[in-house]
């Protein structure tokens, strides 16, 4: 094998996947559509496509039905903004939840992530994104006004800000802190950011380690 091909094969065998093959007509269309989904590369798209092709027609019908319903419109909880089947979502309807604690997140998927921890017993408020002027997102485009209304009327005593630890998420957190500091008796906290569990200190990147240092707590 010439050196060039040997080198390419070597790399292809490594963790970097190769490009996609071409199929005909509707199969390729399916692969292309799947490949547009977030987190699905050409190889995964191919795998999913062929899985679907060889599946029971009933299974595919179910998927098609669900997709159909989604396109007809997904409902959002009128209180917190989470995705919901009814006017209010499961968490907002649950009377066992602690209404004094309110956790502010960017997206519905963040609610899911926090729910999985089973640590938090309060309620949520979904902003629907983060401040991002480049994409034309300002406070007006986020559910800020609804948040203010909830805090003024409900029995909320603590707001936990759980926006992403990136530039836009930090900016949103700063904005919330400024907006909420005028509420008397309201405790505003921010999720700690720092070292991952089960990890090694030596492998943490400097930014994370630096954050962990500045956010240290006394024991």
């Amino acid at each position, binding site marked *: 094998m010439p050196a060039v091909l040997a*080198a390419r094969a070597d790399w292809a065998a490594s*963790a970097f996947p190769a490009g996609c093959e071409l199929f005909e007509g509707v199969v390729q269309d399916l692969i292309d559509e799947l490949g547009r989904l977030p987190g699905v590369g050409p190889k995964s798209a191919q795998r999913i496509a062929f899985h679907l092709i060889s599946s029971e027609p009933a299974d595919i019908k179910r998927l098609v039905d669900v997709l159909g319903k989604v396109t007809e419109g997904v409902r959002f909880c009128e209180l917190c903004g989470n995705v919901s089947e009814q006017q209010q979502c499961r968490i907002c309807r649950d009377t066992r939840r602690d209404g004094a604690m309110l956790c502010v997140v960017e997206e519905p998927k963040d609610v899911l992530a926090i729910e999985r921890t089973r640590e938090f017993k309060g309620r949520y408020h979904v902003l629907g994104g983060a*401040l991002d*002027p480049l994409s034309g997102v300002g*406070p007006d485009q986020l559910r800020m006004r609804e948040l203010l209304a909830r805090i003024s009327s409900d029995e909320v005593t603590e707001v936990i800000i759980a926006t992403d630890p990136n530039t836009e998420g930090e900016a949103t957190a700063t904005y919330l802190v400024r907006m909420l500091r005028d509420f008397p008796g309201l405790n505003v906290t921010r999720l700690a950011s720092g070292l991952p569990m089960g990890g090694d200190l030596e492998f943490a*990147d400097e930014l994370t380690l630096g954050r962990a240092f500045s956010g240290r707590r006394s024991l």
Partner: protein
Amino acid sequence: MYLRRLQVTDFRSWPHVDLDLGTGPTVFVGQNGRGKTNLLEAVGYLAMLGSHRVASDAPLVRHDCERALLRAAVVNGDREMTVELEISPGKTNRARVNRGQPTRPRDILGIVRTVLFAPEDLSLVKGDPSERRRFLDDLLVQRAPRFAGVRSDYEKALRQRNALLKTSGKRKGGREDPYAESTLDVWDTQLAEAGAQLLAGRLDLVAELAPHATAAYEGIAGQNPDRQAHVVYRSSIGDAIPDGYGTPGGKQAEPDTLTEVLLDALRESRHADLERGVSLVGPHRDELALNLGDAPARGYASHGESWSFALALRLGSYELLRAEWGDPVLLLDDVFAELDQRRRARLAEVAVNAEQVLVTAAVDEDVPDELSGVRYRVADGEVSRE
């Protein structure tokens, strides 16, 4: 530090090159357009995650190929590491260390350290302030890789703030945006925090670099009390920078102090910023002033003096990196042809003592005798050892 082996695949003009390298000088000789510089560019890319010739990745990938691959075996003291980098324009570049899991390219910063001398260096002296800011920031990242993150955070916050300034400016006369002021406050904070980190890094760097640059210039141009070379950081926020910051033997810059200073400056500049729709103060508007005696080098220095100053900045960087980490790899890209006898001799003197130096030249006569180490011919898509 030296590269023991360099493999390049689908990078620039090269389908594939595999080179065993050693310590001391290695010279690549060949006519122009044969891809000598591309090899040095590849080494530089591993150190900087960017090219000294182009701003985007697309031109780095060979025509009709999806990605370029760089791989190097790096020896540092008695340790050897393998670094790999996959450059795929339009997608996320990936890197691997010692054939482990793919990681962010940023994670390989600091494994390869280089100082590159190239004909483009003249623009360090003659070009726009952005050239000199880039020089400082690149050096900063090589010394402390965490600044790669600081730099991108700052650029992101700056883009966001500018976007907001533009949309807020447009509404003038029309409906007043009730959120504009309070949202700007937030982006001011983001910009000031990242900016303070970057500014502190640059100020401390200049404090250390300045004496090296002055000494290096004297070594090249000879002693002349009226034409001493000075390197001074000149901030767009002017006198607000605390005394002693950025000066040799002065104070170490405190990011917390600078955050406050930057916030004040941004607040003061807000009206003008809104008017123009861009952020007018901050590290992205700062300048590394290069002075010869009392006059700025830019515009006032002769062609020869400009070259001496550019060399002095690179030699100063080399000394600075060397003092901390041991010899970086010296890359001399076609520079000897640009220099007169004296500057040539001075550069050769430094290069001959470097642990590894990679040199390119169009003809053999361009390479000083001291650097006649291993010699490769570059022609017809091949690199052959003599």
